[in-house]
């Protein structure tokens, strides 16, 4: 009988110049598109229609007020309201850099999520004592290499463009009796500013971001180092140790992923809230992360690595992608149905802002088709999950689709009428994505590709479904 030690367990991923070149080519095209996008929006965005409810018109245009009050008053007319707000002339509120930073924020949140999902999925394998995925553990953990970069980019983006992205950073919202006093945001102020005065420096919010990234990077390094030490020394004690750290990480991640979703995404639409938003963002991250893991694994397999990874393992990854696409849809729909059914103005404004907009309306359906309908139909059969070609198509689709999902969460609240998918969006996504791929693959190529002393390596080889 074939045995696992017949394989070359010391193989390393050779990050060839040709591969680097094609990734750089993608990044280069992205950069060109981005520059084209910046030039076109420099010329095109000057008439400056502002967003419904959340734009900077509160600061820039004193004449434009009271649309939050209108929200509360007109349930049936809330779509009129959204349209009316679009007509409002928010002079000077829009600058191309705002769109640039909104795009940067979308990609920051999206790829930080994919990176942490790699670590999360790694931890899951240990906590669940799973043996099937042992051959691709290193692929999962390598995603965490992006985390330090993500942390820096996020914090820097916040300090440069916080006012463009987050309505709650404007300090006149908290001046009681002032022209822009906003009672609802004032009530939520402590979540951003505690223990300092509302409207000053959001120390609580920034501290959460620093602490979450700090914890995530700490656990990534801890798990990674333990796994590499196992390569050198062997024995089962590392496995138990990693399992212990994984379990602690999972508890911390459960809380931090939810709160980071409120902080980084939901607080853009400051008035609005949804109780399952943390889960929703997590599901979006998770399915995008699973698709990325699958794509990297297929790429390695096609280059002749990971001999013991066969269609049985691929089937399992395919089932994860399929299952969590449905899970994401379930959360999307749970959020939508309750808001649609109850029709409370301050909740339904979120969907009205998107559905009634000529910039975003169609993307709601694009989002559902790319992330639910197509993966559901294509991956339904057993054969589709066992052949790389179907998974390659579906995973690419999902990665783009969940970018659209984050685009829909971020842009309407930050750019409003000035947003949309243009050269800048596509270019930034390609450029950012190729930088992430470079960092992740460089990290992957540094150490052994297979955890050669993992106690469940034999089990992975015999995995059969």
């Amino acid at each position: 009988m074939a045995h696992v030690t017949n394989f070359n367990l010391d193989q390393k991923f050779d990050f060839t110049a040709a591969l680097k070149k094609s990734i750089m080519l993608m990044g280069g095209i992205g950069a060109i598109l981005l520059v084209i996008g910046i030039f076109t929006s420099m010329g095109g965005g000057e008439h400056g229609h502002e967003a419904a409810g959340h734009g900077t018109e509160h600061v820039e245009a004193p004449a434009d007020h009271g649309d939050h009050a209108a929200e509360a008053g007109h349930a049936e007319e809330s779509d009129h309201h959204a349209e009316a707000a679009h007509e409002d002339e928010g002079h000077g509120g829009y600058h191309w850099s705002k769109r640039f930073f909104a795009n940067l924020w979308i990609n920051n949140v999206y790829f930080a999520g994919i990176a942490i999902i790699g670590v999360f999925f790694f931890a899951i394998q240990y906590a669940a004592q799973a043996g099937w995925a042992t051959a691709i553990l290193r692929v999962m953990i390598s995603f965490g290499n992006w985390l330090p970069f993500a942390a820096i980019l996020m914090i820097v983006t916040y300090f440069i463009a916080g006012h463009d992205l987050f309505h709650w950073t404007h300090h006149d919202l908290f001046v009681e009796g002032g022209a822009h006093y906003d009672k609802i945001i004032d009530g939520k102020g402590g979540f951003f500013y505690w223990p300092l005065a509302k409207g000053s420096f959001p120390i609580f919010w920034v501290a959460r971001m620093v602490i979450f990234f700090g914890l995530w990077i700490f656990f990534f390094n801890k798990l990674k180092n333990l796994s590499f030490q196992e390569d050198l020394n062997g024995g089962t004690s590392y496995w138990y140790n990693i399992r212990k750290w994984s379990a602690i990480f999972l508890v911390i991640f459960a809380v931090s992923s939810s709160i980071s979703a409120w902080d980084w995404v939901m607080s853009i639409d400051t008035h609005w809230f949804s109780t399952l938003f943390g889960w929703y963002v997590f599901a979006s991250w998770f399915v995008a992360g699973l698709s990325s893991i699958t794509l990297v694994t297929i790429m390695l397999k096609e280059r002749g690595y990971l001999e013991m990874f066969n269609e049985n393992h691929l089937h399992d990854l395919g089932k994860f992608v399929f299952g969590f696409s449905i899970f994401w849809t379930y959360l999307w729909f749970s959020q939508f149905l309750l808001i649609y059914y109850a029709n409370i103005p301050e909740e339904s404004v979120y969907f009205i802002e998107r559905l009634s907009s000529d910039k975003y309306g169609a993307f709601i359906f694009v989002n559902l088709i790319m992330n639910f309908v197509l993966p559901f139909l294509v991956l339904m059969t057993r054969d589709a999950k066992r052949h790389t070609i179907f998974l390659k198509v579906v995973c690419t689709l999902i990665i783009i689709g969940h970018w659209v999902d984050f685009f829909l969460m971020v842009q309407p609240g930050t750019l409003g009428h000035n947003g949309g998918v243009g050269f800048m969006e596509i270019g930034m996504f390609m450029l950012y994505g190729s930088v992430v791929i470079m960092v992740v693959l460089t990290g992957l190529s540094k150490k052994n590709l297979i955890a050669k002393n993992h106690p469940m390596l034999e089990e992975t080889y015999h995995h059969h479904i």
Partner: protein
Amino acid sequence: MERDTNFILGIYDDEDVLKDAVTKVRDSGVKIHEVYTPYPVHGLEDVLGYRRSRLPIAAFLFGMLGTCLALTMQLLMMAVDWPMIIGGKDHAPIPDFIPVTFELTVLLASFGMVGVFMISSNLKPWGQPRIFDLRSTDDKHVMAIDIANNASIEEAKIKEVLQSSGASEVNNKSFE
């Protein structure tokens, strides 16, 4: 349906021996009726040459039936028979129908799948399951050869094939 009543049984102690034996027996031209094992043996269906189960197709069809029934029921109730306006929505608000539609799809798919499985594997209430050897629920693997199905091969020859393939016992079994 007329049921076959006379069988030759090969009893095997080990799953690896069993899998090799299945290949040998099939190569010698003897048709195997069925193999009974106390636990799932990986790769056994492959050596037996079984096609993949068509149960998922049944599940899909029953699921579609559930979807159609649920949508028809709700549309008839809410839009045709007694139109009502609830929460300011249409008479036929499709998003509101999705949870019920989903539930009925899952219900009918699973019930249909269980029903089809029960009938096709002779576990239906009026069926008489045949037990070839009680030890196949404990620690023995049992390979059943249908004599009527192998009319061209002598019984002694079949027994010899089983014996040489590693069976620990070779027995006859008849059903009433």
